[in-house]
């Protein structure tokens, strides 16, 4: 019996203690009409070696193409130590640290994670993580509307240059609470969100908060100081959406403008989490001290024990669902503890200088790749502003067609911007992290050049042979 240790003697002794004849008697309070027979369509159980064979075949089927897609999830090196330690049973199979004294390992990791995230973002406090970057942004929006006491407005400005999946996620999570999301466009030549566009989207109305993402979805660096100062002059809070790797190079949200962003959130996946088809990742959420009681999710704090010795405990639990129930700051229960453990080890190993090297190499590789691709006739940068580690290109043929041809040759060429941004035409978002080699980048450029040339010559979509 898989994972059940009972012997026949155990079962007999236990039934005798309970005073029933058979295990089935223990289910006698369930109305008989509801009892089911066999779960017919569930396959029979498998031995470990058999399921291993099946999973290995399926993992192989997915291949390991060369990946130039970013768009919110990034292929970074993960030190071997990160998951060997994070997957230790003591971290892997523990639960939420309700019994603090028996969970000091997890609690201290959460505290160290919070310390690292406040250092990266330049803000005062951090929670112990949320599900992912997009759901963290949804919580940030709810939090900002609760926290802004200068206005009763429930309007939040959302740049169109924000990740489309983030915009959809936020809408789905916050709209039932009466929050109005107002889209602000971007400058079509620079790919940047400007104060003029924010002004145009909101007019003279009051609003509670504005989202500022750095870099934005096109990889372009926003003028965060100007946007922050403009929002604060309008008594709105600033929600920063940032890439934690980029923060090794870029001004932290706490330094933006005259007063700093009020809330910062984002996706922690680049900090030691495998791509894994989209999850599990972790969202982070930081804020200024004055908003700490509006911060949702678990928070670990340092305190003292009965002997005056320092230790760690979950704190400010009066914000949370298990205490406040219907009046909690959020319904969130678990955080992404295991991923936070990985992120904390990852940051400890890389340190500020390691993180900066990763960020700078990604930046340089993406520029190198963009330069190589732009040698192909008809390929050119779409925007003229500096980027972090993604670049938007215009292509000489429909993006989806070119990506399909590349994928057939085991190259994932980037993210097709056309469906979400039809106004950009045949547009592609590329990313080359520190893992992409010169050879891989040249290979990509050569393949794309041949695909484009074949199409141009044939004047119709033909698969090149090579």
């Amino acid at each position, binding site marked *: 019996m898989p994972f059940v240790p009972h012997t026949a003697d155990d079962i007999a002794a236990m039934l005798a203690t309970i005073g029933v004849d058979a295990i089935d008697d223990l289910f006698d309070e369930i109305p008989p009409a509801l009892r089911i027979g066999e779960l017919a369509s569930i396959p029979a159980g498998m031995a470990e070696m058999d399921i291993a064979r099946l999973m290995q075949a399926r993992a192989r089927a997915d291949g390991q193409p060369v990946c130039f897609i970013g768009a919110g999830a990034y292929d970074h090196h993960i030190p071997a130590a990160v998951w060997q330690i994070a997957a230790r049973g003591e971290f892997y199979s523990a639960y939420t640290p309700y019994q603090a004294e028996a969970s000091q390992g997890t609690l201290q990791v959460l505290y160290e994670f919070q310390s690292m995230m406040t250092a990266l973002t330049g803000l005062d406090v951090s929670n112990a993580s949320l599900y992912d*970057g997009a759901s963290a942004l949804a919580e940030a929006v709810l939090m900002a509307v609760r926290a802004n006491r200068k206005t009763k407005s429930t309007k939040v400005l959302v740049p169109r240059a924000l990740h489309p999946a983030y915009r959809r996620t936020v809408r789905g999570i916050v709209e039932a609470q009466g929050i109005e999301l107002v889209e602000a466009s971007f400058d079509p030549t620079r790919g940047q969100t400007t104060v003029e566009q924010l002004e145009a989207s909101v007019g003279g109305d009051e609003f509670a908060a504005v989202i500022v993402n750095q870099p934005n979805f096109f990889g372009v660096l926003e003028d965060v100081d100007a946007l922050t100062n403009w929002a604060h002059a309008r008594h709105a809070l600033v929600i920063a959406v940032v890439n934690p790797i980029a923060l090794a190079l870029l001004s932290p949200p706490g330094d933006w403008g005259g007063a700093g962003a009020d809330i910062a959130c984002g996706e922690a996946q680049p900090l030691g989490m495998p791509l894994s088809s989209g999850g599990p990742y972790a969202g982070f959420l930081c804020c200024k001290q004055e908003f700490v009681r509006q911060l949702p999710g678990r928070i670990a704090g340092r305190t003292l024990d009965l002997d005056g010795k320092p230790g760690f405990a979950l704190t400010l639990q009066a914000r949370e669902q298990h205490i406040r129930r219907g009046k909690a700051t959020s319904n969130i229960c678990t955080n992404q503890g295991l991923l936070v453990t990985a992120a904390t080890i990852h940051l400890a190993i890389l340190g500020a200088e390691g993180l900066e090297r990763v960020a700078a190499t990604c930046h340089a590789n993406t520029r190198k790749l963009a330069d190589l691709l732009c040698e192909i006739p008809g390929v050119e940068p779409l925007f003229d502003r500096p980027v972090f580690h993604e670049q938007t290109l215009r292509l000489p043929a429909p993006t989806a067609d070119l990506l399909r041809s590349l994928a057939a040759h085991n190259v994932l060429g980037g993210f097709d911007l056309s469906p979400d941004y039809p106004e950009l035409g045949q547009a592609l978002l590329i990313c080359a992290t520190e893992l992409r080699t010169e050879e891989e980048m040249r290979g990509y450029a050569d393949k794309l050049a041949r695909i484009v040339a074949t199409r141009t010559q044939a004047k119709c979509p033909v698969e090149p042979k090579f």
Partner: protein
Amino acid sequence: MGTLRFAHPTYWITPIAMLIHDQSRPGRRATAQAPLHSLAATDIPEGLRRRVPPKLPEVSEMQAVRHYTRLSQKNFSIDTHFYPLGSCTMKYNPRACHSLASLPGFLTRHPLAPDSHGQGVLACLHELQEMLKEITGMHAVSLAPSAGAQGEFAGVAMIRAYHQARGDHARTEILVPDAAHGTNPASAAMCGFKVREIPTGADGDVDLAALNAAVGPQTAGIMLTNPSTVGVFDRNIQAIARTVHAAGGLLYYDGANLNAILGKVRPGDMGFDVIHMNLHKTFSTPHGGGGPGAGPVGVSQRLEPYLPVPLVAFDGDDYRWLAEDERPDSIGRLTAFGGNMGILLRAYVYARMLGREGMGRVADFATLNANYLMARLKSAGFEAAYPERRASHEFIVTLKRESKELGVNAMDFAKRLLDYGYHAPTTYFPLLVPECLLIEPTETETKEELDGFIEALIAIRREAVEDPEKLKGAPYTLPVRRLDDVRAARLLDLAWKPGSNEVQDGQQ
């Protein structure tokens, strides 16, 4: 009799709460772990650059490995201790689930890679989707929610979408039993509903008269856990379903306790319209120190259009994701990339290893272990909260008598259990039973482990009689003694800042 185990063989060699930051020295690095060459990103404008590097620890790789290995040793976990945390289903997490979900083809796949480069993972997810339908008796399943609470949100959002689509805007209230998990009312509130509590009867079942009085044209639905959080199967579930449906409301099933009924009875057959499952409970994916979870939702036919995206479709040849464009009535997307895929893969491996015969055994032995524990504790003089009822996979002991007569409460028992090498059961939940321990042993524990736990509880009660102060000071054998929660909330110390240790500890 219970023996005082030394719970933590290594804690004394670990310096007191030393942070990784305390071990930092300027210029120390783990050089092999970053690109070897430093490049200058000269084309980033000066005004957008970071002026001061972030204060991250500067340590060697070995220091980091040693520090976090030692921290891990300060945890109780399923792999090291019996962990009978009620309502959390802390069963063994098979190692194969982790290693097979971590195969390179799965781990390195980008979420936006084309479906053509994901047929392997999509096949697993589709089969999991289909198995969960069968196990729960629901019409359709979405794997998108990242945790139980997100599944609850999605479920209530679907109830809202359903009533709105029918133009039934009067349904503004969600009914929640007073025994419910805190996430239930919080999820209902996040979806814009008012929450109305329904009392639990003296026998542990929902109070039907109170339910009858509460339902009406304002009722959007009811959120129920069955077996409930008091550890009993609600015998009136069919009557509850009839009552709520007759009033035009829908039934939401909180799958937190699905482990108790796996392969025995299905939420769909009980009349539920929408359910969430906690795969980190029933399907044994890791709890990870508090996540990641996975909280798939299942629905009856009438709610199918509203399922959160993405869904996995299979046309007989190929698997593919269905997103917003093909699911126009969906309540939408809950995370950027559609869910905790790596966790879903672990659940898939577990489900395939159990197979159809293994599913029912889970409920059999989870229930056997719980009833055995309850029977022995009752005969040892402990008071079960619902002594006339069968335990499901969990049950409640109330220490109200010990609290009154000896002055020691459930918290004291819980903390003392840690000294005996057992993680404490859930305490002070559900709120309606005073001084309660909610005990869930799970099917993977041996009789010997259960016997040891019983002996420990008996020994602790003896200590409570002989020396109650001893319990109030517990634990004694862990890395720290009882922590000052009031101080933690009043003198907030939520992050290390340069120099913060001097202020906090006065030791350096």
